[in-house]
């Protein structure tokens, strides 16, 4: 049917449009980037009012394979698009790494509705463990990353445990306190470099090929960042898919139930302990891997990259993008990373910008740029009824 092809190409076009918008943000000056973002916000809110956005969602949802393909192609071609500019690639890599952390953090903020102020500690735990093992013990960075993941999960249990007993303000204070203790302990531990950080972290290697060697692809010499770009985005894709599956699963539903009312949730047979700890451990695992990759990518880690203000930035990403919505969280992380780097020249205004953006978003769009979607149980044969079998789990109270 002609209509089908029409819709098919339309879906492709909208994905392409999003990719193009992101590319423009990435490659142009701050002002242009801001204009594009403002434009996007206008389109979003107008579209929402006219219910167009919903249709676009469905359009994209119906042609998943095509759209994922376009995004994959976009990332594959990105190094060529930016003509091997390693700074732009660096931004793209950082956007990917931060997206992974933000996805993990979203399990706590979006899932069980508890703000965890210590994501940077998870992130740092992964980075420090992996860096320490590979620099001081000579472990392979791949194994180091795995250990970083495990240690981050351990920290996730430590931070998640209080969440079982405390909620709201008390929990936020606990997580802030743990975040600060984490940074202080690193500063005070000379054996992991203390305030010096750990320089000279080795890079990943596959069969003698170091990720830090430039590559020649298609006759063009590309900087070493390309290796990391692909690595990070493959992982991001995997993690985003996992997060999406999780969100649509019983676990995601249980998290949301706990967010609404833990006592009622417990009465419905949800194991509060396991479910809440899972949110923290999974989040920690995401952040841990991201941290480890960050360390092996930049070759240097210092405590300043894992402190409280970094945690706030992660929280900003989740809130800006849209809590409990995987594309939203990734979008938030990517946008904020890009704006942050563009603001490098105005670094005095960086934190101020975060503060103002957070307040404005909370007041104007408390649910973020891409708000949480109605949960849809995917049953192919009943797609006609998909809107009826939707379970509404509204936002927060």
């Amino acid at each position, binding site marked *: 049917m002609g209509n089908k092809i029409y819709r098919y190409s339309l879906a492709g076009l909208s994905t392409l449009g999003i990719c193009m918008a992101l590319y423009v943000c990435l490659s142009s000056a701050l002002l242009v980037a801001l204009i594009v973002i403002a434009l996007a916000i206008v389109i979003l809110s107008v579209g929402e009012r006219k219910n167009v956005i919903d249709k676009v969602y469905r359009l994209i949802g119906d042609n998943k394979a095509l759209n994922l393909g376009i995004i994959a192609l976009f990332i594959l071609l990105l190094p060529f698009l930016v003509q091997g500019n390693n700074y732009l690639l660096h931004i793209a890599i950082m956007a990917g790494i931060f997206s992974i952390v933000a996805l993990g953090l979203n399990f706590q903020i979006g899932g069980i509705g508890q*703000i965890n102020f210590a994501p940077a500690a998870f992130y740092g735990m992964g980075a420090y463990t992996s860096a320490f093992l590979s620099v001081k013990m000579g472990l392979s960075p791949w194994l180091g990353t795995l250990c970083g993941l495990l240690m981050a999960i351990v920290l996730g249990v430590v931070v998640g445990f209080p969440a079982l007993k405390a909620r*709201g303000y*008390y929990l936020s204070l606990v997580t802030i306190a743990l975040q600060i203790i984490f940074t202080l302990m690193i500063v005070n531990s000379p054996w992991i470099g203390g305030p010096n950080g750990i320089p000279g972290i080795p890079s990943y290697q596959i069969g003698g090929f170091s990720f830090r060697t430039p590559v020649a692809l298609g006759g063009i010499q590309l900087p070493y960042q390309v290796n990391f770009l692909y690595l990070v985005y493959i992982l991001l894709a995997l993690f985003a898919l996992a997060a999406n599956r999780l969100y649509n699963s019983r676990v995601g539903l249980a998290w949301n139930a706990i967010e609404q009312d833990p006592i009622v949730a417990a009465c419905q047979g949800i194991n509060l302990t396991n479910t809440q700890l899972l949110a923290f451990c999974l989040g920690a695992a995401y952040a841990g891997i991201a941290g480890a990759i960050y360390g092996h990518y930049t070759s240097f880690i210092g405590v300043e990259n894992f402190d409280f203000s970094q945690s706030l930035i992660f929280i900003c990403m989740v809130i800006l993008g849209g809590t409990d919505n995987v594309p939203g969280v990734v979008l938030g992380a990517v946008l904020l990373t890009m704006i942050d780097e563009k603001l490098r020249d105005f670094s005095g205004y960086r934190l101020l910008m975060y503060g103002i953006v957070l307040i404005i978003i909370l007041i104007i769009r408390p649910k973020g740029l891409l708000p949480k979607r109605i949960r849809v149980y995917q049953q192919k044969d009943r797609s006609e009824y998909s809107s009826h079998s939707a379970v509404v789990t509204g936002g927060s109270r």
Partner: protein
Amino acid sequence: MELIISQILNAVMLACTYTLVGIGFSLFFGAMDIVVFCLGDVAIAGAFAIMALSTVMGVYASLSGILPAPISGIIVVFIGACFTAGLVTLMYRAVIVPFEGKNINASLLSTIAAGIVIRELIGLFYPEGRNPHAFPQLLPAGLIGDNVLLSWRNIIIIAITFIMVMLLYWFVNRTKTGLSIQAISQNKEAAIMVGINWHRIIVITFLIGGFLLGIGGFLTASYFNSLRFDMGAMYGLKGFCVAVVGGLGSIYGAIVGGLLIAFVEVFVTAFIPGGTAYSSVAAFLIVVLFILFKPEGILGEKTVEKV
């Protein structure tokens, strides 16, 4: 022995700097069930205002031309505290009112963000705002007699803290407005039902709390003799810890909590070899333990936690 006495004095002084901001947290939590995270920054902004009045704007200098120095000092501090009161009320309007009755996470984040905004604005717009500043000495610095332990400034800091707490006690328990604040904090609906104009009372609470914070910021800056634009973050966090340890919502709890945290910090520094670097860690650990095992704090009443 002298060492222990001087360390106790150090701890008491440190507790004085924590107490007023802790009271601020308790006061607002009591009145509104809300934790205003930017209080530390507000207090430091108040100290900056006092510093601006006495240095950049030269108000202190021109005042002390006509009036005796202590009086002009008091006037400057009073103006600064009023400024803080205004600032905190502005915070209430800007970042608390929009989130009233919504998920606490929103107001939590918005007040943290407001703290960042205040901090960064000071850093950007105060002349050389990002550099550390020497805080003007509005309090006399001399020692009392030959006793090296007691200086006039320390005595005055303790006295002002004490007077402020007493005034607050009197206000909250002996005046109609104070009783109304208590009434609202205990049962907002019933308070409305007896005809309390709760909007007005909340604003008054914020004004009073802001005034206390201004004084607190002034005392802290005077005691440390220095001021930095980002001091407020840690100051506010410690204040919150103090309030939680003492019992969130309890004024006396803030005093007790302040003493506990200050003693832990000072004694870890003084009596544990190599402990200096870990004094803050110890303080935060205490807070975590309190939240886990005695969330109502030392003086707080055991109630169902407000979420």
